[in-house]
């Protein structure tokens, strides 16, 4: 199996690895780099559990090969919180408002929400729902997720 060298930045840290060209970015992150916060829910680009930020944009990592990420600047859920002791406002609100149950969809939704709020710091409920319409959650029924994103937006605007 052919391999290539991949150099990329993830959560502010540089990585350089040799990787099989057919290896999915999700598997590279999870298995090669031990960043297991990004989850695999379907492997066909529908559920959004694998969502990461690629140069700031929400991308489904299961639909991309690791080699395609050469030179990219990625953020995964492990890079969301500002430090080991603080939480991102989104994480804080999800915690306060019961925006997660099993937590499997959560990393993908957090990053999707972060991308949304960067682009639209004051989204309506409808806009929030639409932005996470590509993230499946089987546990929560979405209500608390939408509220948590709304509240996080308010908290971030207030800063």
């Amino acid at each position, binding site marked *: 199996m052919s391999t290539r060298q991949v150099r990329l930045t993830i959560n502010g840290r540089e990585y350089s690895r040799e990787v099989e060209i057919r290896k999915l970015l999700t598997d590279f992150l999870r298995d090669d780099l031990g960043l*297991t*916060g990004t989850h695999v829910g379907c492997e066909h680009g529908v559920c959004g559990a694998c969502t990461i930020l690629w140069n700031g944009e929400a991308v489904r990592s299961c639909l991309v090969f690791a080699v395609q990420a050469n030179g990219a600047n990625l953020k995964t859920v492990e890079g969301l919180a500002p430090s080991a002791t603080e939480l991102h406002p989104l994480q804080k609100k999800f*915690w306060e408002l019961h925006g997660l*149950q099993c937590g499997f969809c*959560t990393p993908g939704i957090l990053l999707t929400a972060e991308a949304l709020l960067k682009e639209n710091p004051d989204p309506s409920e409808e806009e929030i729902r639409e932005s996470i319409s590509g993230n499946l959650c089987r546990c929560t029924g979405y209500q608390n997720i939408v509220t948590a994103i709304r509240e996080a937006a308010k908290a971030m605007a207030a800063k």
Partner: protein
Amino acid sequence: MAYIGSRVKRKEDLRLLRGTGKYVADIHRVGMVHAAILRSTYAHARIVKIDTTAATKLPGVIGILTAADIPGMKTIPMRTGHIDGLERSQQTPLATTAVRYVGDPVAVVVAESRYLAEDALELIEVEYEALGVVTDAHESMRAGAPQLHETVPNNTPANFQVNVGDVDAAFRNSDLILEEEFSTQRHAAVPLETRGLVAEFDEGRGQLTVWGPTKMTHTNWSILSDHLGLPQSSIHLIEPDVGGGFGARGEFYPEDFLIPFASIHFSRPICWIEDRSENLKAMNQSRQQKYQIKIGVKKDGTIMALDAEMLFDMGGYTRTHGGTPAISASSILRGPYRIKNYRLNVFCVLTNKTPVGTYRSPGRYEANFVRERLLDTVAHRLELDPADLRRRNMIRHDEMPYDLGKHPFNSWVLDTGDYPAQFENALARINYEKLKSDSAAAKKEGRALGVGIGCFVESSGIGPWEYARVEVDNTGQVILYSGCNSLGQGIATALSQIVADELQVSIDDVRVIHGDTAKVPYGNGSNASRSVVMAGSAAVGASRKVKEKLLQLASAALEIEPGDLFLRDGRVVARGVPERTQGFADLARLALPGTALKQGVTPGISEEDFFASDKRPFPYGVHIAVVEVDRATGIVKILDYLVTEDVGRKINPMIVEGQVMGGLAQGIGGALLEEFVYDNDGQPQATSFMDYLIPTAMEMPKTIQLISTEDFPTPLNPLGVKGAGEGGISAAGAALANAVSNALGVEVTKLPLKPDYLLELIGRIKVESHQENA
């Protein structure tokens, strides 16, 4: 401040939010290799030959197992829902002579990576001899239908009846008899995390460790021990973080034997993670039931009798749940109504499809749909308001507790509640009268606006017992070892609240350990909304014993009578003399063996308790849906929704609401979107999320009222709680079907309420039946 009843933030969340949770696919063992399962591509076939030569030669392949490599392979037993006869169609972990559904496991490949294992799957040559396929339960029972299992004639391994009162006499006394056929479609739990296991065998010590088991850990521990011929003390099951269960995850599946077996056979730690297309073929499906039902009523709407025949579509094999969805449906078909004459004849039928198990509110979501739709149909016929029909027949408060009568598999007594009062409140809260007039006005304008009601009684807190051990460690922290499991529902937080209140400590000083057989010796797991009821009550019992020990130790240390001592903030304090006090850590030190034995005291602060009960508490409630249906496209929009449920007592209201909301989302999926469709050759058509549609944030109702009450705690456990896991889904199919029927002026008789079905009902299109249909 009491923790019970307050919206405590979950202890589980921080690691999940940071992405540092450990789900089974996140576990890496040194030297770990990967398994992939070769699954049948035929719905029904004889296995003529399996040739693994080419596959075995592929570089990176460690080995391949077929049934021939596992002599003495046992069938996977039923752990519940055992109806006589069902044992004849159980499944072996690998198919031996025949395959009975697309997805039936035929071989296991173990290779250096999952990628290589999947490469190897493609090189395995299986010669199948195709056999006749049957995908419809009716067809399957007919003489001459292809037979799935040698010893099961007519593909009907079991049949049972419920018979209460005198149905025939009651029909003779009825003014109106209505007969109808209803069906609910195949759909299932489909949690966002697929199944997976990591198994590692320490040959030197003869110790097997398996990460991944959940839901019924101790039951599965026993089954695995029996199947491997390894004592339980040599097997260690560890529950990781789990991505949802809803009934389907955590049962003993073929892979639960195969992966541990392979790890022993190949002497390598093995990881197996199911991919989604496998999951949609291999994880338990559910919900497919067909009813032919007859109801007899008086002119004024009083229900005299209910008589039905039900076909329970089991798929290709009997699995661990046996006939549970059928038994449960048969037990709750009458709902919260006074129906003294009831007869049901249930056939459990095999078909060439994925085998079934339970899914949240198993059998009850189906039965609620059937009964509530039937009631509306009767109401329309008698020109009664559907709410009035329900009022007339609803069990009254003064009739509680209400014995549901003779049943072959259980004896259910509805414990507490005031169904009519809750019903009136629900109608008032959604402004039912106004909705009726809005609906009439809208229809005049050509808009299909409708309101629908679904009432339910849910089962919860199944026994027979649960285990807890509470311990105070040497730092004064409290640890609860519980026999329940976490599928993501927040049980560790709820149990912490209970223990923290009993022992008057900060919730931050309570840890809950579950799902680990080396730390928890007994358990009955987490299913059927039992955890807070059973594990919670056992935790109460163990905590109270620990409290006694703490008081005893403090009493000896302080030389004060235990009656003059009380617990506060992690300390034992003397009444009226606050400076006379011992912290839990101090007492733990006094309980160390060196000191304790000298005092003639049993060392340690650790107490076990079992809470046993064979009587279930029954939460109950109402779903009311308001929909608008686009008459041109058949698409249903849910404008407003109300769910009310009395759960006796809420340990954590936030968690309870989350359960109801999550259940509602699934209920909407089941009513409008989700279906496992099979073609006439038994080929599954919904094998990805492109075809199996799960509700997104856009499908939820525009406004939702969620009312969970604590009006009638149950006397059946010390907490007074009823399990809140299933009320949110329970009558969603019923309410939505009634709302759609009301909106369009039709009588829906099946789920799902897909656009082409609704258009067919209003006569806009004619659908040629060319596929197997629910």
